[in-house]
């Protein structure tokens, strides 16, 4: 990877941050190239934070992606919503900020764990389990 490789993780909470960061490190990304933007605890909902910051991060990505090898990873829990609805909400935030919707050739990955990141972690810890995407898991 070049000196300018960088991945920004935008996420709702610490669980998501640790999960995404270690996932990327295991994929071979150097940890020094990861920058985390995680919602603070006690200041509103994490999901709202991600939706509010998403246009800023997409804007920053688009300003630099032509001359830097950068990408954006977004994590937002689906909770009781459909995954497609969550993706649409994020697109709507871009439109509200007068930005184009996410394009297929952009290095912007959105992970929407359903029901939440704990569901994924719970599955990864025991893959013989049947996944329940409707009930909140606790780690």
């Amino acid at each position, binding site marked *: 990877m070049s000196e300018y490789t960088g991945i920004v993780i935008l996420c709702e*909470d*610490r669980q998501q941050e*640790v999960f995404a*960061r270690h996932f990327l490190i295991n994929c071979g990304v150097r940890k020094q190239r990861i920058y985390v933007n995680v*919602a*603070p*605890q*006690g200041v*509103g909902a994490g999901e709202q934070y991600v939706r*509010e910051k998403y246009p800023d991060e997409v804007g920053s990505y688009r300003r630099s992606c032509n001359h830097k090898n950068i990408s954006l990873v977004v994590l937002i829990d689906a909770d009781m919503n459909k995954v497609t609805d969550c993706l649409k909400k994020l697109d709507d935030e871009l439109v509200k900020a007068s930005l184009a919707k996410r394009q297929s050739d952009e290095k912007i990955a959105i992970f929407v764990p359903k029901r939440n990141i704990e569901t994924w972690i719970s599955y990864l810890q025991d893959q013989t389990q049947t996944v329940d995407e409707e009930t909140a898991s606790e780690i």
Partner: protein
Amino acid sequence: MFKRIYINNYKCLVNFDCELDNINLFLGKNGSGKSTVFEILTAIQQFVCLGGKVENVFKTESKTRWQKLNCQDFELEIENEEGFLYKYQLSIEHHEDGQKSRVKHERLFFEDKPLLRLEDEGQVYLYRDNFSEGPEYQVDWSLSAVGAIPPRNDNTRLTWFKNRLTNFIIVQLIPPMMFRESPDETPYPSEYLENFTSWYRYVSQDQGMAFQLMSELKEVLPGFDHFKFEAVGEKHRLLKVYFKNEQDRILIAYKFYELSDGQRMLIALYTLLYAVCADQNRKYTLCLDEPENFLALPEIQPWLTELYDRCNDGEMQALLISHHPEFINYLLASPIGHWFERQINRPTRIKKMKDRLRDVIGKENRGISVSEIITRGWLNE
């Protein structure tokens, strides 16, 4: 893990009580008492582990100015790996008439059962590991009775507590103060890590740790290749740092003191992390006052995530003081912030950061980061 500290009648800390997690961030305005907590930890460590005399370690002037009380009280609670709790209590009596200060009482408990009691008149009651009564004797009122007990087969709990207290590293790193040469090996980092090279000489005897540290530094410090000590006279050593340019692959050696303050800071911070986690049988509590000083912005978060992971995995414990937005915004995704506040000539009040945020801004997200909320002064009363 260090679970709790109580302080009464020491500078701005009156009836101060703070419960601690694996990782803790102390926040608040200057003069709100954050560093005073570290000062007391240093004082207790010097008193118990290094044989400091009470009048030298706890100065009479350190009493809270607006109180008339002559006694200062301190309590520490430390949990061992099995989840059992040690409680240490120390009470110091000062005199205004020029008489020397003395230990009023010093007590150590294991799960609320006494291991040692030094009571009024300097009378010590010692207990064995099975809590049966041991010898009673008189001691010098100016020294720690806990500190004076040599390790024995029947006082392993008391010895464990003393060793654990030794494993508190309380430093404020100031690279320009670091000495040029190392006169000897030293197991303890000094207050400002002036003795970095001597301390590194000691910890790098663990070659596995030194190898891992150098591998990490290759990642975080551009061009870094390795360290080497060079003899200067019979005992003195000079730490040399080798850098390699990726293009011509030529190694060039620099003396440690020739590096920039930021480079030395980065090396010292990673060395602290690797050294305290090297021996899994010894748990450390790392207390760092403004560790972000001298670092370049992109260097902060990678070190912080490394620290967070190690604390979260239970390899170590950290108490941090910082005013830096990177620290605040990254760490406050976890409920580990403590907000210190204080009015002029009044005692420090401490609140959990999440509660303080909720008090001030409610549940609504105002779309700004916590560091901005602090910068704007919204958390100040």
